[in-house]
């Protein structure tokens, strides 16, 4: 209802009376739909009733679907897939340390991945199992990240008009989106470079050690590799800690250890992975 603004405070007769429920029937229609059936409070007064931001989820869905589409559930998915990826990255970095034992050991290690648990299962089955697991984890991690980012952007459509002064949020936590993208792009390049080989002119299938040396002999690749792994370390520093929170792993008994574990994981992976291109560049390996 728009009152005549020129007559300051003058009430016109017809405006003043609201019959029975006392709610004005003519307030402007801004998202005035009922929130949920069974709710008595409809959104009639935009300044006093809760706004509609996200549409209520349809009811009667199976609980795993409800869980996976809720933000808290997606954080669980982020955490669990993140945990799988941390496991992979740790194992991958540890295995690659074989490069310091020389070409024979390293190639042997690379080949052994294909024959894991052989002859109990046929060759490469376990490797493929792990690959599928990784793809699923990556997909879930990235998919949830995109969905959550959308939710968060919607949650603050108008940003603060003055600069924020953050206290707890650090570089790592605020750059997750960007370090994540860098790592994802790096993974694609890494596969093209050392698994599929088309990004590496000197690629020879099965000759892991030589491929690695050939790749890092190109300085831009070595630099990109190092930067990406630093980004990965930053990502893991917040991600590992965040994983504990998202999964509710929290107790005064070990809370102080969570930051340490996150720092150790991030540092170990960064140091080990960055050492490979450095070793090649400075001729320790090669």
């Amino acid at each position, binding site marked *: 209802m728009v009152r005549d603004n020129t007559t300051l405070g003058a009430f016109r007769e017809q405006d*003043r009376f609201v*019959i029975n429920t*006392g709610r004005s029937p003519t307030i402007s229609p801004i998202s005035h739909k009922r929130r949920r059936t069974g709710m008595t409070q409809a959104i009639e007064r935009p300044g006093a009733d809760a706004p509609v931001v996200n549409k209520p989820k349809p009811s009667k869905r199976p609980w795993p679907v409800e869980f996976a589409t809720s933000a808290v559930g997606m954080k669980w998915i982020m955490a669990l897939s993140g945990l799988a990826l941390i496991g992979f990255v740790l194992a991958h970095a540890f295995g690659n340390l074989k490069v310091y034992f020389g070409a024979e050991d390293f190639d042997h290690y690379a080949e052994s991945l294909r024959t894991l648990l052989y002859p109990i299962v046929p060759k490469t089955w376990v490797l493929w199992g792990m690959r599928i697991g990784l793809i699923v984890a990556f997909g879930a991690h990235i998919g949830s990240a995109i969905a959550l980012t959308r939710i968060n952007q919607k949650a603050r459509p108008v940003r603060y008009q003055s600069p924020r002064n953050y206290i707890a949020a650090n570089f790592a936590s605020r750059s997750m989106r960007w370090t994540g993208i860098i790592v994802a792009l790096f993974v694609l390049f890494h596969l093209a470079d050392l698994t599929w080989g088309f990004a590496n002119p000197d690629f020879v299938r099965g000759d892991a050690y030589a491929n690695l040396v050939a790749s890092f002999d190109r300085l831009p690749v070595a630099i990109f590799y190092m930067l990406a792994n630093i980004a990965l370390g930053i990502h893991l520093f917040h991600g590992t800690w965040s994983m504990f929170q998202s999964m509710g792993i929290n107790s005064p008994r070990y809370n102080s250890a969570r930051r340490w574990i996150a720092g150790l994981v991030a540092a170990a992976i960064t140091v080990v992975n960055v050492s490979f291109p450095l070793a090649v560049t400075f001729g320790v390996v090669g």
Partner: protein
Amino acid sequence: MTLTLDSHIPDGPLEDKWDNYKFDLKLVAPNNRRKFEVIVVGTGLAGAAAAATLGEMGYNVKVFTYHDSPRRAHSIAAQGGINSAKNYRNDGDSVFRLFYDTIKGGDYRSREANVYRLAQVSLNIIDQCAAQGVPFAREYGGLLDNRSFGGAQVARTFYARGQTGQQLLLGAYQALARQIHLGTVTLHNRTEMLDVVVKDGRAVGITTRDLLTGELEAHSGHAVMLCTGGYGNVYYLSTNAMACNATAIWRAHRKGAAFANPCYTQIHPTCIPPADETQSKLTLMSESLRNDGRIWVPTGHEDERRAVDIPEDERDYYLERKYPSFGNLVPRDVASRNAKTVVDEGRGVGPLHNGVFLDFADAIQRHGRDTIEERYGNLFDMYERITGENPYQTPMRIYPATHYTMGGLWVDYNLQTSIPGLFALGECNFSDHGANRLGASALMQGLSDGYFVGPSTVAGYLANWLGTDAVPTDDKAFTESLDQTGGRVDQLMSVNGTSSVDHYHRELGKIVWDYCGMSRNAAGLQKALTEIPALREQFWADVRVPGRADGVNQSLENALRVADFMELAELKVRDALHREESCGGHFREESQTEEGEAKRDDENFSYVAAWEWGGEDIQRDAVLNKEPLEFERVELTQRSYK
């Protein structure tokens, strides 16, 4: 016309009155309850509890608050605790002892039957709150902890850190939230009640203003329950929240509800004194500080030295000197008055010489800093945030401030005002605290009225109206009320004078505080009675309310409230002038013992002064009705704390 004040006190022995009465009350059957609309105004302890309980019972409830959320009502700021005669300490407490202490603490100016019921119901309140998940302090065995509070000789106070009021209100708010979700209660937030609608002598609804759009709305119901708190903000500076106001009860008074004992005000001794002219409100420091702190002022006048520089022999520990047995733990009114005396003598401390020291140096020396920090750490932090002084190193400065109003709408045993259908619950009625309230009893009364008493007695009233609809809001009674209220808004908006609403509120506060504060005398009260009407006249001629009436306008909200305070202040002073005795929070200088203590006059003033609205000239037109107080079970004694 003089009202007939029937208190409807049931017959029979004190112990059985409430039970018998509940049996005699008419009931509304569960399937009939949804046919009744009940309006509850206010969402503090009394309002939230009443609305939730009535909703649970199945009534159609509409609840109103001017806040954005019911949880923000000022009950939330109560710190100390809530009394209950559970006797979990085995230290001799009982319902009768709580009753006796409350009557005595109220200086024998309250009704025996009401107070006894309060003490009885106090048992159920703790059960209710504990079941709701109120995180009361516990012992290691998992059972509830108690402390002794406000000089009580038994430990009957339950508490949740220093946030008891907050936790109890959240309990009531959550119960209310459940009912809102279930649809039995409709919440009208950011909506302020501006008038009671009366038709054929009974309350049939209210007129409200939507604080967002400025629209005036009529709401009808079979009964109206006011749970709107006290009028302490008549002093401008008080520990009440900024928005606390008396408009609801004052408008009810103007429509015919008697206003009882408006002069009874409690001044709390331990507040932080104002720092400068910009001060907007006062902050209470828990009374528990007096357990360990020593109160003193310098012996010399206008002493500008720092506290640590004043030697021991130039300090006057005046409470310990005058009251050797109670010392710093004398009751609130005694501590307050003595602080005023020394400050008036020019011995006040701080930059404005407007406070007294509360010194923890001895306690820190005796118990160690760690113990003191454990007991009062958060209070000390709060003090430091506000004043910038560290109370571990320099004594706190404290001064009394208005805290609670014992007076309020006159109600009978049903908590019904002199307008049928209009009920008053919690601080806004006068019923239980007499002339002075005991510590930790306000929360108890609010919840007792809200959870247990109001919902029972309102049924007795509603049962009479079964089969009738609520009066439609196009009835003449409603349109007249809307017209009047709209006229009042228009008038305020159109004065367009020079001074702000706050200016007038501050001026009013000064008059009331100076002449009707901690100690009162006939000359001062008469002076106030000339100054207040003059200020009121000036207000209506000179106030300027900026902005528009058809949207959010906090100045207008405030102007409507202050306009009513102007009138209430006059009645309050009028009441204080007529009561030529000292009792509890009302200290008349003409009526004191040789030692300078409050002296009651039971022969002439053992009654409730219930004022009836007579017309705009309050001094001349207000009609005094007396409800005599009869005491069957307690013997009247003079308090002594020597």
